[in-house]
């Protein structure tokens, strides 16, 4: 293959799922794409740039993991299209880097042989040599290179070992395509490949004779046990929620104190007036109300990163397979659904790993019911209001655990009903799950990921939420009333009038017009609910004689109906929680669902179903609760 000196060559990284392609991609390009110690993390082609030791630019494509080039699922088809040059906007790669797990060569090399058979120049990245050597495998990369006829580079991508050697192998002129010496027209191609790989492994990757039980095997005997495994799963997630509430209290206190001090400082600098009110009640109150929950969100992503990086996530998928089967899904749906706990958008995209179109559609439909991180500020606001402040954090963790469990359980029930209506697949699918060995977490990746998520949260608070807080303040301030009473002023404002229109619709759910308005604004983004509440309920503290500014939660606790009853009773708070568990309040997710399902009807149907379900569930909870005397 010839290369014009002025063109950039393209290199594709291919390999089985969880071989470390994205880790290698990040190491080569300096990117920070999502990685995890389980199969199916990458579902789309990602591209970046790197340089050879002589400074030539190379374009690097990170392809989704695949076991073969048969293209059974949408993500595998993407990988095959990329290798064949059929991907729109991407040329056929000039070289393929086959990334293999050195501890599992028998399976991973099958794909490498198929790539060589395509006639593509190839380099073998023998990744995870540390794991293979730890298992007692005796690797001979020189022998492997001789037999395959391609350069072989031993490496440990997560520690950036072997990157320089790999770049040396990518220098110009690029290696030429090797011949498929194992291919024999008289023999079945798969049998020929299997025999060749067995022979190759005997020569270049000898295993110790006796089968040794590894540390991962010993840990799995507990974590995959039918009883202890489930107990461990529940304990892991309960501890996660408890840790979020407990550890976040101190930094949250700092943020609240900072917010209060900032408000008081502005108050001391400026005379009373519209601008002071806009800065303190609109900007600081609105943005601060959301930013307070930053420590909890950062902690959640830290723990998710820890579970993903260690390899526990694949075990959770294994345990959940039985439960998923009862819902008419398979373990393949678990990982997209788990991703949705962080954000439904990557979760919906991760359904590309599912072979069955019907199962994929159902998984997309229920994914937004996994409580995403945008709901967390709302939960963190409501859950402590439900409990007395002296109650232990473990009770708050228990409520949050129940919130997640309720969303998940309802999603599974709906999936079961929907799957029944869609009918069985013509070709039954099989769920094949690889259980990777437990690994030490990649701390640098986890901390970078948490930092990026925190930055993204702050960026959103400083842009969208700040803007909406300013507009909400204006709506709750203008037109001005002549009355000096803040409650009258709010009732006279545009927001008060909107609230009066909405109130008859939301009152049966236990909400007043202000809550109804805050819910309406949260359809732009869920977190805006907290900002709206901070702006709309400021009247309680501003009207009092004391000048001490209370945090939003305390303001809500003292809010009353005109007849003096408390607005936020345990029943109305549960009703509000239930509404947020079920309502579909994320326009970007609706757009991604339309794209992934190929149908706006499906996306709009999902929006209408989830929102009406949320309304009905809240209505039933509040009305039944009232009937039985709560």
């Amino acid at each position, binding site marked *: 293959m010839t290369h014009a000196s002025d063109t950039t060559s393209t290199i594709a990284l291919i390999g089985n799922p969880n071989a470390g392609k994205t880790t290698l991609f990040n190491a080569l390009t300096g990117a920070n*794409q999502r990685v995890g110690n389980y199969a199916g993390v990458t579902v789309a082609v990602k*591209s970046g740039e790197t340089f050879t030791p002589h400074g030539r630019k190379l374009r690097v494509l990170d392809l989704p993991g695949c076991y073969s080039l048969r293209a059974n699922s949408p993500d595998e088809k*993407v990988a095959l299209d990329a290798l064949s040059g059929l991907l729109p*906007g991407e040329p056929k790669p000039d070289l393929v880097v086959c990334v293999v797990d050195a501890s599992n060569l028998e399976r991973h090399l099958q794909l490498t042989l198929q790539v060589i058979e395509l006639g593509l120049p190839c380099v073998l990245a023998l990744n995870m040599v540390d794991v293979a050597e730890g298992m007692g495998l005796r690797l001979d990369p020189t022998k492997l290179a001789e037999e395959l006829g391609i350069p072989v580079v031993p490496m440990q991508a997560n520690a950036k070992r072997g990157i320089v050697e790999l770049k040396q192998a990518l220098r110009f002129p690029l290696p030429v395509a090797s011949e498929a010496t194992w291919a024999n027209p008289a023999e079945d191609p798969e049998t020929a490949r299997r025999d060749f790989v067995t022979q190759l492994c005997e020569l270049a990757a000898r295993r110790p004779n006796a089968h040794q039980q590894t540390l991962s095997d010993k840990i799995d005997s507990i974590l995959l046990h039918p009883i202890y495994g489930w107990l461990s799963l529940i304990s892991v997630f309960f501890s996660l929620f408890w840790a979020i509430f407990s550890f976040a209290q101190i930094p949250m206190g700092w943020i609240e104190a900072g917010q209060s001090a900032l408000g008081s400082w502005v108050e001391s600098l400026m*005379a009373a007036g*519209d*601008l002071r009110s806009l800065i303190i009640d609109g900007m600081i109150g609105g943005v601060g109300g959301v930013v307070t929950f930053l420590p909890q969100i950062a902690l959640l992503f830290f723990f998710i990163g820890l579970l993903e990086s260690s390899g526990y996530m694949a075990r959770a998928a294994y345990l959940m397979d039985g439960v998923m089967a009862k819902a008419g899904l398979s373990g393949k749906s678990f990982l997209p659904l788990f991703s949705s706990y962080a954000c439904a958008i990557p979760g919906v995209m991760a359904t590309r790993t599912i072979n069955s179109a019907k199962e994929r559609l159902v998984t997309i439909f229920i994914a937004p019911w996994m409580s995403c991180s945008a709901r967390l500020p709302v939960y963190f606001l409501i859950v402590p209001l439900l409990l007395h402040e002296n109650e232990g954090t473990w009770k708050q963790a228990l409520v949050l655990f129940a919130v997640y469990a309720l969303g998940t359980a309802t999603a599974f029930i709906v999936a079961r009903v929907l799957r029944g209506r869609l009918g069985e697949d013509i070709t039954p699918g099989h769920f094949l799950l690889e259980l990777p060995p437990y690994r030490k977490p990649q701390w640098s990746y986890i901390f970078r990921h948490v930092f990026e998520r925190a930055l993204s949260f702050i960026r959103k608070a400083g842009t969208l939420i700040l803007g909406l807080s300013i507009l909400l303040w204006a709506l709750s301030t203008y037109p001005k009333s002549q009355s000096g009473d803040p409650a009258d002023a709010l009732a006279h404002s545009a927001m008060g009038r909107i609230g009066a229109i909405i109130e008859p619709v939301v009152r049966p759910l236990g909400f007043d017009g202000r809550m109804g308005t805050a819910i309406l604004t949260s359809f732009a983004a869920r977190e805006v609910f907290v900002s709206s509440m901070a702006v709309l309920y400021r009247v309680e503290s501003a009207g009092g004689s004391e000048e001490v500014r209370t945090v939003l939660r305390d303001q809500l606790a003292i809010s009353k109906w005109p007849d003096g009853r408390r607005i936020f009773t345990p029943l109305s708070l549960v009703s509000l929680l239930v509404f947020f568990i079920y309502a579909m309040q994320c326009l970007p997710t609706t757009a991604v669902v339309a794209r992934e399902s190929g149908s706006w009807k499906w996306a709009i149907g999902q929006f209408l179903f989830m929102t009406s379900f949320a309304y009905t569930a809240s209505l039933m909870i509040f009305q039944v609760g009232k009937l039985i005397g709560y």
Partner: protein
Amino acid sequence: MQFHWQSLTAAGIVIGTLLIFIVRLVRPTKKSGCGKGCGCGKPTDSTHR
């Protein structure tokens, strides 16, 4: 009718914010990698199905 400088400044900020929202709403948007500001990782150079 006399307006206080604080009222005028506050009204200016509100109108400015409203204009930014309107401009962003009507301006054609670039395709992003994985949703808009959902915080699920930075957009990639190119992403294909």
